[in-house]
Each structure stands twice: as structure tokens, then as C-alpha cells.
């Protein structure tokens, strides 16, 4: 197969792929950070011994990655506990902490958390006091840009554990056209036993869709979409579809959530609520082509399409004049 379609098919229908281009499948899975997820999906299938050894190592590695992600969350919890504010886990760490199906084999890079915006300064000070450090030059343009326009603090990295933390106060940059309701995200969040919190199920989908389709060039998109598939399959009920529609409207992200549902259905055959997903659109094909733009050697393909989505990501992220100024500064420094 010429593109990552084999990977998408193996994830959604592991029994159906038969004897395939194993090297291509594994290279694509590694490139898309999906080897762990694939290894668990393929568990119990008849595969060649060498492939089974790779999957087995990936499953063991996933257990270690999970421990490490949860430990990092615990470290943040301890650092911020004295502040007495809600601390919400996001993305992969949230899936692991809540034992969601999406966590099975899911790799986790940075720790993503969300806190109320009015507490950002206190949170940053507490993290710096607990061993996290700034990655970007504190007096530079990037730092200033993050603080003024982004939905998160400039990234921090822990001095000894070498792990990054992204502290969000909402789910989209302030320059983007949709304005998600950050207060509502926090108010509806759900407490876990540890005292840590996660977003409500509907808001988790809204965030995943926002991250994938409203804030980026779809790099790593197959994994983000796989998250969405797993979450939707775990939560799907008529009530859930209604709640999801309402939250998508509230956060001004109806179009992106609908797109996420349709693409998840196209690539992973996810059962989706039709009223939320809406009618297929011609542009869905472009998104699908972009998500699958990788070949069996793990190489990025369709350079022009990738570049178009890169331009789109900047276009979505900020108004034209601001974009011009931003690119000018980036290009001339």
C-alpha cells in the first residue's frame, strides 16, 4: 500500500489485514507514534515471530511510558497542591489517569495541564520553585508571544527528569476565531480519585477536535484521530451525542467537531452520531489525504498538500496582519 492506509486499517480491523507489508506497517506506526496502540490492537493475531517480538517489546514499553506519564502528573499535583486550585489533566496523560480505552498503548510526550487563567502566575512560580525551567529565552519574542497570544504558558522542562509541561488556560490560541468557554471547561471538569481532574467527556472530544483541526497542520494527526475513535467508541450513547453537540456549539467549534467525527468514521469506521457529524463534505477527502500522507518507508509524502495545511494552520491561528508581522519577525531574527 502506498500510504498510511494500511496502518489505519490495521488499527480499526486488526484481524482483517492478513499477511501484509510488515516492515511498512511498523515504520508507518513508528513515524506516527502509534506502535504501542497497534501492538495492543494486534495482540492475539497470528503474525510472524519477528513482528511479534517488536509488538511485545512495544507493549512492555507502553507500560513503562504509562508509569512515567502518571508519575509526571503526580509531580505536578504535588507542586501545585498548596495553591488549592483545580488541576486538569489533558490529552494522553488524562486518558491514562482515567483508565480510558484511548490510553491502551498510547505514548505520552509532554504533560498537558489546564488551570484557571487567573492562577497562571502562581502556577508558573510554583513549578519554577519545584524544579521546572523555561525552555525559551525569557526576554525573547517567543516568550512574549506565548504570554500575550497563546492558550498556554511558554513550555517548561523539568531540570532533572527532562520532561516538558504545557500549562494551558484554554484550548485554542487567543488569536483563533473560535472562542472556547474556558470557565465552562473548568466548571464541568470531573475529579479523579487522586484529586486530579479531567475535562468532561464531551469537552475532551471538543478539545481533541480543536487541537487536530483548528490549531495545527495535522502533523501526528493519525494518532489524535485514533484517540477520538477510542473515546467515541467508549462513550457513544444518544445522551452523549446530544451533550457533544451542545458543548461543540458552546465552544464555537461545531464545524471542527463535525469534521473530527466524519474523519474518524472514514479512517477508523467509528460509529458516530449523524446529527453532530453532519453531511460529508468534499474537503473531507483533502483532510484524509493529508492524514495518510506517509509511505511504507515512514517518509512524508504529498509535500504540496502538507504545505497547504501548514499555511492553513497559520491562517486559522491568527488574523492576516498579525500573521504577516509574526512571520516577518520569525524570518528576520
Amino acid at each position, binding site marked *: 500500500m502506498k500510504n498510511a492506509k494500511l496502518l489505519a486499517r490495521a488499527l480499526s480491523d486488526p484481524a482483517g489485514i492478513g499477511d501484509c507489508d510488515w*516492515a511498512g506497517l511498523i*515504520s508507518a506506526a*513508528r513515524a506516527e507514534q502509534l506502535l504501542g496502540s497497534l501492538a495492543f490492537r494486534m495482540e492475539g493475531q497470528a503474525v*510472524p515471530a*519477528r513482528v511479534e517480538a517488536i509488538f511485545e*517489546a512495544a507493549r512492555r514499553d507502553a507500560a513503562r511510558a504509562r508509569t512515567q506519564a502518571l508519575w509526571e502528573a503526580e509531580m505536578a499535583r504535588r507542586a501545585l497542591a498548596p495553591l488549592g486550585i483545580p488541576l486538569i489533566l489533558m490529552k494522553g496523560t488524562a486518558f491514562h489517569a482515567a483508565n480510558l480505552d484511548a490510553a491502551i498503548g498510547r505514548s505520552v510526550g509532554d504533560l498537558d495541564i489546564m488551570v484557571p487563567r487567573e492562577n497562571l502566575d502562581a502556577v508558573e512560580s510554583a513549578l519554577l520553585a519545584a524544579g521546572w525551567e523555561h525552555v525559551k529565552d525569557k526576554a525573547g519574542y517567543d516568550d512574549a508571544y506565548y504570554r500575550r497570544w497563546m492558550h498556554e504558558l511558554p513550555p517548561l522542562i523539568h531540570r532533572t527528569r527532562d520532561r516538558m509541561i504545557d500549562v494551558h488556560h484554554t484550548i485554542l490560541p487567543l488569536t483563533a476565531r473560535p472562542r472556547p468557554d474556558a470557565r465552562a471547561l473548568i466548571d464541568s471538569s470531573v475529579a479523579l480519585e487522586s484529586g486530579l481532574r479531567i475535562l468532561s467527556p464531551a469537552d475532551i472530544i471538543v478539545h481533541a477536535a480543536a487541537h487536530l483541526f483548528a490549531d495545527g497542520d495535522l502533523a501526528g494527526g493519525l494518532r489524535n484521530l485514533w484517540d477520538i475513535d477510542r473515546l467515541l467508541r467508549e462513550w457513544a450513547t444518544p445522551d452523549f451525542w446530544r451533550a457533544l453537540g451542545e458543548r461543540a456549539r458552546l465552544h464555537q467549534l461545531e464545524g471542527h467537531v463535525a469534521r473530527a467525527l466524519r474523519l474518524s468514521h472514514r479512517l477508523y469506521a467509528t460509529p458516530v452520531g449523524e446529527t453532530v457529524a453532519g453531511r460529508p463534505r468534499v474537503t473531507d477527502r483533502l483532510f484524509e489525504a493529508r492524514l495518510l500522507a506517509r509511505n511504507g*518507508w*515512514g517518509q512524508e509524502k504529498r*509535500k504540496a498538500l502538507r504545505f497547504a495545511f501548514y499555511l492553513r494552520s497559520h491562517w486559522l491561528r491568527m488574523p492576516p496582519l498579525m500573521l504577516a508581522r509574526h512571520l516577518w519577525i520569525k524570518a528576520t531574527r
Partner: protein
Amino acid sequence: MRHRLSIQIGPVAFRIGSAWKAPLDALAGLYADYPKPADGLTDFTVRLEPEKPWRRFIRPSVAIRGDYCLPDATPMSLAHGLLAAEMGMNLQMALGQKNYLLLHAATVEKDGRALIMTGESGAGKSTLAALLGERGWRLMGDEFALLDLDSGLLMPFPRAVSLKNGAIRVMEAEVDPARFGPRLEATPKGEIRHMRPNADALARMGEGARPALILFPRFGEDAAIRAVGAAEVFMRLTQASTNYVALGRRGFDALTGLIAANPALAIDYPDTDTALGQIGGFWRELAA
């Protein structure tokens, strides 16, 4: 990819793709006597590709990529494409190997028992391993020692030995010219020439060995031998391992098992003959 080649080295199979023919021709020559993966499958993929599309033709520059990449790796000149392929395979092992505890070490075997030599670059482990491999020992590998997590056996990884600078002359005096790759001048590591291990090392690349001694050689000092305590061995081997942390508890158990079962010595040596004499002495004592 336009040009492709698969190679089996010990228990690991690689698939190497390249945008240019020359690096793979050189690689195929150097690895001529190695088996192809028996199952037709591979563990890791290496890609040699232009850093930017036009760099395939204009001032060609080889980016080392693959299943696992270093984001800020410097591209290499096409003349050093063979070295790029070697580095690409090493990179996959260092970042992606999770089935064995990986030690940055040379290993040789005699009478069914293996000697592990580790140390910083320049300590002479490659040269010593290559020389021992020509003088009655079996060369298991000059770069990575693979410690099986369950059995505690060392598995061979007899890739082509990467000889640098002075070591090139030492081995040229000893070994059939047909076993050498091209001379690579002015690489980031100085002059480099690759040498194919001998037929015995290749024929037995599937055969593991029980470790017997851990050695920390250091070249350029007066001859000296000292015992190294378990705590120091542990610290030095965790630093010499690329995947110790990633293996978690299993890595800890394998490493402490290795250290508990084997003596460890540090040797200083002014010339290779001295080191070979020291090592021969250790082996006679171990056998006694």
C-alpha cells in the same frame, strides 16, 4: 525508496533505503558475506535521503533518518554515505532496541565465555576487539553488546568494525585487504575504514555466549590493573547503556545480574601488545 538493501546482523535485521546508489553499493560490498533476513522481514528501517529535495543533485547531502531520528543530526557528504548508513543503523539500535539491554561495548568470546570491554571513545575497545578477533577469539561486536533480558546471555552484533585513524594501519597489517571497505577521509570522526569480521564471526552470529569478565580499558597510560567495585561498575554501565532507563525494572535486573555474576577490572595500557598480554593472563586465570 529508489535503492534498498536488507542485512541481518546477529539477531537484528535492517532495511536500508537510499536516494543514491553509491552508499548502498559500498554497503553491499562491505556486508557481502552477511546473511539476508531469513524471514524476509526487518526490525528497523534506515533512510538515507536528501536533506532538502534539491540536495539530491546539488552539493548532495545525506540526512540520516529512519524509524527513529535525531531531530538535529548534521547531514553528511555523499562521499561518506557508507558511514551515514552505519550511523543510521547504530541510531536505530540506540533509540529503538527494546529487546536487549544495550551496552556501548565491544565483546569477544573464547571457550564459550565472553569478555565485555567498555570505555569512552578512544579507549581502544574497537581496536582490541578487532585484534582479538584475528588471534583466536570470536569477535561478537565492536560497538554494541546485547544482553538478553531473560537468559543473561550476550548476543553477537558483529557489524563491520569501524576503525579510526591509527587503528586502520594496525589492522591493515593483519587482515586480508578484501575485508576492508573504502578509506573515508576527513569524516567528523577523522579517518575511518570499515573492516568485515572474519568468517567464523559471521557464521556464528546467531550464537550467544555467557559473559565472564567486564573490562574497562584505557589506552595511553603505563600498564596497570585494578579491580572495580560493583557500585562503580553499575554506574559506568548505566552510562554506557542507551536503553537502560527505557527498560525499567527488567533493565535493572539484567544489569545487576550481570554485575553480580562477573568480576570487573580496569586496565591501563601503553600499547596494544601489553593489553593483549593482560587479557590473555586474565583468561588463563579464569580457566584455572
